[in-house]
């Protein structure tokens, strides 16, 4: 039984064991896209947990009595099951697997107790209900085995939100068939972070990668609370056509005491300094091009540079989703189906505006 699996071992065939989100991380790694390291707590762990601890029967027992349209009963059942999962001690096999996975991760990152993100990762059978199955369940900056195990249990429990239960009942989907995996992934110890697009979002130019970045975590860029540094780089000739270094007053950092992320002032001499080195910009462009090729479409990507690693192993992708604005715009041919001669004729008729 594989209770945990390193992300590097996953690919799309791992979906039943590791869930969609983890499998797609594995696919990204396979195609050369660097994501923060981590491991999947597989569906076997979940199954083993509910079986070995004996709560499996209790759960299905509670569910079997549910009547449709009885909202109060639904909420009650949900609370009961989630309480059951969260309060039951982890059985040894699974506990040991997660512990060893975490200690290996800490070693890899060269950090004693590395903060991680714990996220649920839904499996194939559950895909139609993905949005109800606690897919949104994410616990950030989790440190230490005990906390991780608590978070894993919370993710498992998210299979039994009232909405998820109700959805399966309505669609006659057997609860027994629904399994869940959890991802445990290093939190990026972010020196600088931001977003990038594989086209220029201002004019749709597909030959450009546009990078925005600032100090610390990417939240300041995503939320627009700082003016980020901006770079426009040509994908083919790799020229930087635009390079704006802004004054970045604040940065978002993780506060280990409060356990949350907070905005702090950027040291004065760092404010006007470019948050990316030239080689890092080049590497990001390379990564962006790789991601675009991997997904076969324009992408919107979140990236971060991790202080715990050195270049280029420190360049991480934390999120990649399809670009929507320009991609959804229905475009006719830009050149109007013209031949070279017709285009030449057009040119000859033109008074050439002096560029600038």
């Amino acid at each position, binding site marked *: 039984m594989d209770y945990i699996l390193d992300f590097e071992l996953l690919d799309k065939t791992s979906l039943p064991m590791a869930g969609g989100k983890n499998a797609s991380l594995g696919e990204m790694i396979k195609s050369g896209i660097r994501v923060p390291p981590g491991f999947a707590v597989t569906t076997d762990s979940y199954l083993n947990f509910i079986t070995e601890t004996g709560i499996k029967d209790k759960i299905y027992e509670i569910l079997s009595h549910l009547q449709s349209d009885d909202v109060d009963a639904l909420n009650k059942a949900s609370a009961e099951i989630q309480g059951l999962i969260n309060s039951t001690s982890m059985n040894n096999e699974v506990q040991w697997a997660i512990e060893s996975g975490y200690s290996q991760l800490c070693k890899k990152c060269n950090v004693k107790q590395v903060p991680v993100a714990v996220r649920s990762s839904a499996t194939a059978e559950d895909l139609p209900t993905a949005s109800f199955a606690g897919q949104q369940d994410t616990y950030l900056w989790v440190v230490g085995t005990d906390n991780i195990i608590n978070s894993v249990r919370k993710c498992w429990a998210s299979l039994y939100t009232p909405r998820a239960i109700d959805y399966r009942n309505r669609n006659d989907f057997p609860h027994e068939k629904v399994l869940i995996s959890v991802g445990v992934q290093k939190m990026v110890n972010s020196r600088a972070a931001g977003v990038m697009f594989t086209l220029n979002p201002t004019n749709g130019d*597909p*030959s450009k990668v546009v990078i925005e970045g600032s100090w610390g975590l990417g939240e300041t860029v995503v939320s627009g609370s700082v003016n980020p540094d901006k770079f426009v780089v*040509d994908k083919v*000739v790799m*020229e930087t056509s635009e*390079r704006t270094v802004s004054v970045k007053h604040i940065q978002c950092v993780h506060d280990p005491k409060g356990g949350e992320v907070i905005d702090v002032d950027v040291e004065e001499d760092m404010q006007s300094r470019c948050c990316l080195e030239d080689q890092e910009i080049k590497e990001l462009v390379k990564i962006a091009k790789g991601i675009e090729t991997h997904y076969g479409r324009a992408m919107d990507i979140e990236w971060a540079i991790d202080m715990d690693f050195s270049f280029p192993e420190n360049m991480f992708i934390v999120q990649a989703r399809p670009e929507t604005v320009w991609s959804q715009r229905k475009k006719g041919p830009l050149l109007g189906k013209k031949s*070279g001669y017709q*285009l030449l004729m057009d*040119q000859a008729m033109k008074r050439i505006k002096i560029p600038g």
Partner: protein
Amino acid sequence: MVDEKAGRFPDPHEIEFPPELEGWEEMYPSHYLFSKEREGWEKSQFWYQDKIHDPEPMPPLDLIFHEAWQISLAQYTTRVFCIPPAQGIAQRMVGPYMYICAINPPPDEVMGEKAQLFEKRVFYVFEHYNEIWDKWIIKFKALGEEMKAVEIPHELPKFVPEDQVLPAPTGCYVSHDMKEAFDILVNQMFKGWQYHFEMLNLTYLAYLMFGDVCRKLFPGISESAIGKMVAGAYVSMFRPEEELCRLSRLAVSSRGVADILKSDMAVDQKIAELDKIPDGKHWLEEYDKAKDPWFYVSCGSGWFHYEGSWLSKPDIPYSYIQSYIERLENGETIERSLDKIEKERDEIVAKYRELIESDEDRKAFDDAYKTVRTIYVFAEDHLFWVEHWFHTIWFDKIREFGTLLVNTGMLNEVDDIFMFNRYEVPEILTEVATAWALGVDVPLRSDYYQAKADKRKKILEAAREWTPTPALGVPPEEVAEPFTIMLWGITTDKVKEWLKGMGEVSTEDVSELKGFASSAGVAEGPARVLKRLGEIMDLQPGEIMVCPNTNPSWAPVFGKIKAAVTDIGGLTCHAAIVCREYGLPSVTGTGFATSVIKTGDIIKVDGETGVVTIVERAG
């Protein structure tokens, strides 16, 4: 000089000249001067200094090339291929410097007529490019050979030779032949320049078309990326350098040859020493084989008589060979791979092509690219044959006339003939012919002409110290003339930069210049300002070359420098292309780098943003 009003340059009719230039007007044909008769029209145009063709004061006879291109370039645009809104490029002299303007478009009805002719005539050329080129090169080489064959007497005989009188009198003798020979040379030069533009205008038009296609597909694409897709290697322009590489390799693999070539001896001595040993003899034979046509390459741009060629200044090719031999002995590769350049270009095109989203657009892109590549080789190939080979033949022929005038006592030095324009030379020849015909002891006005030549040389020398305004008149908002942007790199930004340079700001206060980002990369180092073509030899390895513009015979220099900055030139100018090949950063078309930057200044050249920064002034 400086016009205080913002946004405009001085009125061409109100320019004041330094007193040392007094009398400059008589050096050039009168239609080259700004004139009262054409004042209204001249004021309505925007004139800028042509630093590409005339970076230095213009010797009167060297103006012939410009006279020829003014007609030819324009005629293909206006009367032959009929590019609808475009007119020609007019020239004027302002002191000994040439100014040019892209003439405003013609009336609408003329554009309509031209459009019809354009379609019919131009597409034919694209369809039949290869055969037209094959014919072009044959007829051009024939024209050059005809020019070489023109016979010019070096002195006048006391009596006409017997065989010209008996038994069959030729009926026309040296007094006529020499004037006719000059006229033939002039006509051949004008004809050569007619051929020069046979396809060039269309080449540039196609380039602009392709640029526009690229910008529609990739709105933010840079000019330099477009340049990289279109421009290839100047195949024929690289041959002189390739021949040097070949000769250097031969020297290294021969017995005793490399040592002689590496020694400090003068070229004559080297040749004498080589001639003493068998391998040396063989090497000299190989050198001679390469001479015609490849060592007809000018040491400069080909536009000035004093630049000389590798034929007349063998110390230049010999010094290049010397450094190539040293590099070979250090185990370095000296050749540039043209295949590699082409391969890189094809890869860039393929990568942009992949980024095109629709199949229709990809098809149109392919077609546009094919169109521009079909004809662009002309831009790459004509240059050696016209500006170098053909001009060198002309200069040599004219020097034979110079010799005649020195031998007849009319002039002091052979090259003084270049101090007279092409309308004045026949007058001098006529006077010589007349005096010869009249008999013995007939006086010539030698003093008159010698004084004139001396005075003109002084004016040209004085003009070197005079920096004229970069432009005259009111800048336009748009241009329709393909050469203006392509070759001279004239843009609104450029004009604004010029206006900035004209204000009260002194050149010492300027710390940053903008130009075309024509070859990517960043370099910092000491500047070497090469205002005159003869200063190439001063250049030290690792310096950044700052010059008005470069040309192909400078090619070996690029192996030494860190980066290049030019006053004039767009993305396809010579410096830009060679820098891209060598992977050196370059910023071209800065307008006035050679006057702002001083040799020894530490400068930073950013070939990605087109900015040149003066980091530290020389002490």
